[in-house]
């Protein structure tokens, strides 16, 4: 295993993901390249159909037919497992299962669809521990209860046995975050993690992700359409349009002095930047 400490955690090179439909071939991800350093937060920002979610799903090899990755490399320089090109793993390889949820985890926009309605929230988190770490059931339960407390749920012992429908949207998203981070991944992919939430709940969830990111030291790839969220939580930003990254750089540089016409147009469309309509 080669040492990976000097390398960025993630290097994506010329990634291409296409969907073949009756109407032709859609290049959802059309030659995307970026790298993400350990512990940093990169935001992929764009409108619907820009390819930001397709990029995220490609990283975890979650693209389903009729879509497939048709080119490029996704290099994960894991401190635990060395360098892995995720595009080269077979769909059912043990290594891919170890990557998913172990080295890279993902939180989704709609917490209800990411949770099983027929299992208690605690058992769903404990399952991740049992899959990825050496632990007995009792240890997994204890670690789960600790994690539920860390994401800010009161009475974590009781919460363990509750079902998703008994929790509010904000609490469900805390459960998802607990599930994603309990195995201390090196990379967290957050796909619109607060889009479905009220603004005061969003503030709490973004604060929580930030705190836990520092504790665990993981990098975050944040998929969002919201430049406000980008400005407040990301270090770097890549603006996507039609499957390509049109502009990339530190958040302050891109938001304060956008170079690309599309970035400028998006920023000008923000309600807070638009002049009062007479």
């Amino acid at each position, binding site marked *: 295993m080669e040492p990976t400490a000097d390398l960025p955690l993630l290097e994506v090179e010329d990634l291409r993901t296409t969907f073949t439909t009756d109407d032709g071939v859609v290049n959802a991800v059309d030659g995307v390249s970026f790298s993400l350093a350990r512990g940093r937060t990169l935001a992929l920002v764009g*409108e619907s159909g820009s390819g930001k979610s397709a990029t995220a799903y490609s990283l975890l090899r979650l693209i389903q037919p009729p879509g497939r990755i048709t080119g490029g490399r996704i290099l994960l320089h894991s401190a635990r497992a060395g360098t892995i090109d995720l595009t080269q793993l077979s769909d059912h390889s043990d290594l891919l299962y170890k990557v998913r949820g172990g080295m890279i985890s993902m939180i989704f926009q709609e917490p209800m669809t990411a949770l099983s309605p027929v299992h208690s929230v605690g058992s769903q988190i404990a399952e991740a521990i049992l899959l990825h770490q050496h632990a007995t059931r009792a240890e997994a339960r204890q670690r789960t209860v600790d994690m539920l407390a860390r994401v800010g749920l009161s009475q974590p012992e009781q919460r363990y046995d509750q079902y998703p429908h008994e929790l509010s949207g904000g609490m469900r998203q805390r459960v998802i975050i607990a599930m994603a981070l309990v195995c201390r991944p090196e990379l967290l992919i957050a796909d619109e993690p607060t889009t479905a939430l009220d*603004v005061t709940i969003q*503030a709490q969830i*973004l604060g929580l992700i930030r705190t836990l990111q520092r504790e665990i030291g993981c990098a975050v790839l944040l998929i969002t359409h919201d*430049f406000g969220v980008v400005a*407040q939580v990301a270090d770097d930003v890549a603006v996507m349009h039609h499957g390509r990254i049109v502009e990339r750089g530190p958040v302050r540089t891109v938001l304060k002095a956008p170079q690309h016409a599309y970035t400028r147009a998006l920023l000008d469309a923000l309600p807070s930047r638009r002049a009062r309509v007479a």
Partner: protein
Amino acid sequence: MTPTDPGPLLSVRGLAKHFSVPSRGGRLAPASVVKAVDDVSFDLAPGETLGLVGESGSGKTTAARCILRALVPTAGEVHYRLPDGRTVDLAVLSDRALKPIRQHVQMVFQDPFSSLNPRMTVGAIVGEPLVIHGLARGSELDDRVAEILRRVGLQPEHARRYPHAFSGGQRQRIGIARALVMRPALVVCDEATSALDVSVQAQVLDLLKELQGEFRLTYLFVAHNLDVVRNFCDRVAVMRRGRIVELAPAPQIFAAPQHPYTRILLSAVPSPDPDVPMNFQVAEELARLDAAAAAVAAAAAVES
């Protein structure tokens, strides 16, 4: 008030909507009452845009539905001024008496995907209110549909197509055309731009503003997104737990919010300016606000 001022178009007084929720304590336990809307009052001047903002569960949508009489309010008055100058209380009118008034009050919905019938052509969707109210038929119906489609930035030819052929922004234009074909005076927009991408949202807001001038519309604009309301509304009412906590001109709400809840809410909005930090501590601040309110209520109870 000038002598010619006819007064507000809509005057809401003490509006309340309570839902009884079955208790978890079994069949015999008393049901608890949720006050979704609790003593809401405001006036809406002709041509004005009032934003009704709040988080989920604040009662903003329930209040709007009571005003439209999609729900029957538990209490309160909803005075609406008709074009002939008469004022009616929408809260107590019978369904039959309401029907002719519905042409004056229309709604634009949030989800342009679920609010349009996929089996109807755009022409049938937009023309349906005219048919229901018996206001137009035949070539006159076609002409009015074509005319309103043009006004909202679509083509008259689009009348023959089905909703699935249109993008989210175009569907929202179809929804707006359906509302405006009746030539209403009051339009209630319920999260009308929330499902749209930011660039499309900007276009739809511009369109609504343009149409407001053209058709002399009055808007009640229900939204959770404070940023959208900021530049679109003349006045803003902030709702929490069924009540309006603050109602003021939009620039004042954003520059100098008076109520602590408004201040907390605004501080939680992530600014696209990296130099304007957002407040991650809202949970603690809301808890302090509620604790202070509870202490005041307890003290008042002791006094009396």
